[in-house]
């Protein structure tokens, strides 16, 4: 694929464009699935090191996953924490709402990540609906 031959000269050198997009999407998914926090830190490091304003697919995927990961933190950690700290822990309704919210929200975010990874594997740009930047 053409993008494979385009090497990034800024930040992390020698990483093909498409590969960087795949790494960004993988880190987004790892943050959601098995390495919460650590994978996000790695994504932040890549975002800062690499020219994230680039119009290449790697720049697009880095911007999208970085923004989406911040939303992940807000939606899954902050909102859940707010719900748990304001609602009555002795009520079954609290747990009905919190568990249902968390599971649905987490699943949708994972599915969006899989779509993003599929696009990255195909060497195409991807825009996370609502939680991704428009550019």
């Amino acid at each position, binding site marked *: 694929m053409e993008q494979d031959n385009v090497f990034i000269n800024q930040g992390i050198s020698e990483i093909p464009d498409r590969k960087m997009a795949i790494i960004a999407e993988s880190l987004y998914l790892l943050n959601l699935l098995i390495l919460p926090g650590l994978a996000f830190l790695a994504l932040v490091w890549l975002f800062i090191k690499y020219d994230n304003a680039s119009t290449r697919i790697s720049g697009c995927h880095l911007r999208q996953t970085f923004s989406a990961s911040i939303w992940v933190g807000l939606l899954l950690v902050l909102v859940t924490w707010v719900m748990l700290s304001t609602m009555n822990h002795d009520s*079954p*309704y609290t*747990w*009905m709402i919190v*568990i*249902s919210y968390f*599971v*649905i929200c*987490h*699943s949708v975010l*994972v*599915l969006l990540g*899989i*779509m993003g*990874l*599929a*696009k990255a*594997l*195909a060497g*195409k740009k991807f825009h996370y609906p609502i939680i991704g930047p428009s550019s």
Partner: protein
Amino acid sequence: MLYPSQAVAKPYFIAAIALFAVQVLFGLIIGIQYVMINIPFITFATAKLIHTNLLIIWLLFGFMGAAYYIIPEESEQELYNPKLAVQLFWIFLALTIITTLGYLLLPYATFAKITGNQFFPTMGREYLEQPTIIKLGLFAVLCGFSYNIAMTVLHGRKTMINLLLLVGIVGSTIVFVFAFYNSSNLVLAKYYRWWLLHFWLEGTWELIMEAILAYVIFKITGDRAIVEKWLYIIVAVTLTTTVLGIGHHYYWIGVPEYWQWVGTIFSVFELLPFFFMVLFVFNVVNCTKCQYSNNAVKLWALSTPIMAFLGAGVLGFLHTLAPVNYYSHGTQITSAHGHLAFYSTYVMIVLTMISYAMPILRDHKVINDGIAQKFEILAFWLMTVAMSLMALFIAIAGIMQVYVQRATDLALPFIEIQNSMVVMFWLREIGGVVFFIGVIIYITNFFMVKKEYGTR
């Protein structure tokens, strides 16, 4: 249709759809019985028996139809014995009707007695309630089916898709032998019952599902190389996670405690095949110029792995860890997972295959903007949204049930717990009605195609 013998798939698909409608109807009856217990003529136990047994049977009809359609094309030759396939269809249908009527018209104990269960007792276990003689008939049908498919594959071209389908079919037949093992030791009896059910559901059936999905995606995109490359990865992950992953069924049946660790660790990884299936489908579609005109088939095929990831993967993971399962085992959470997992993984793949194959089997042109297509897409959304909401309502009821029944020192009495969930049961019933409307529209769509387009 490339090979005339593929036509034997048609009666299997028709039977599958008809039994699907009956199965959903009995599901509605059970749903009503949850909230209005006194319904004349049929008990909850009988209706549930028919609901769960027909599910397994119509999916088997669907898999058989799919195999009879796919195998000749993939093997590049006619089916080894089309007559045998037709004969087996009628035997299988007769067994299904006899069993269902037996459940409906006779007390279960009488049915067991007149079918000679006392000589070789295998009845009375959930999902394996069929009389022994019917089980023998079903085993004979599965053996004949496996033989027919194996001989066709062995005499023809071997591809990843037809070999995987063959492994799934032969595997399902071999595993069914455990239906005849009914130990007087309850732990052993439970152990091998789970072996059969979940080597089917999480093993051999999953392989069949992957083969059908790969075939349809190949037909949509036309790129065999990329489809087969992904299929290797998915099958490898399925096989490595399933065998020990089914340990999550052994937690509380009396086996050694290490199964809690084994089941917990490996069943977490059982999410991976569904993860890769979503990635596979969208990667293949993104990498190829997809110009296939049947939009309904595309919708079914692309949605199947997504829904399977949610229903079988996420809802399964929700209660698969041993410490969580200690509280959630056998609650409505299990029911939520069961409903969405069956629908998303097996019902959807059979409907995908039927939607792909039936217009070809009926010699109709496929047009992407016809009214029939729109009706089928409407049926898809009605069924999928209704089942997702049903699963959500049941899961919410399950969370409530765990809280008031298990995670407390002062558990409420059973009937009070049921009463606390009654709103969710009503919402589930409404979801069931919408789902049934979806099924009716799906069936209606087949009759509309004929009117609209005529035959070639």
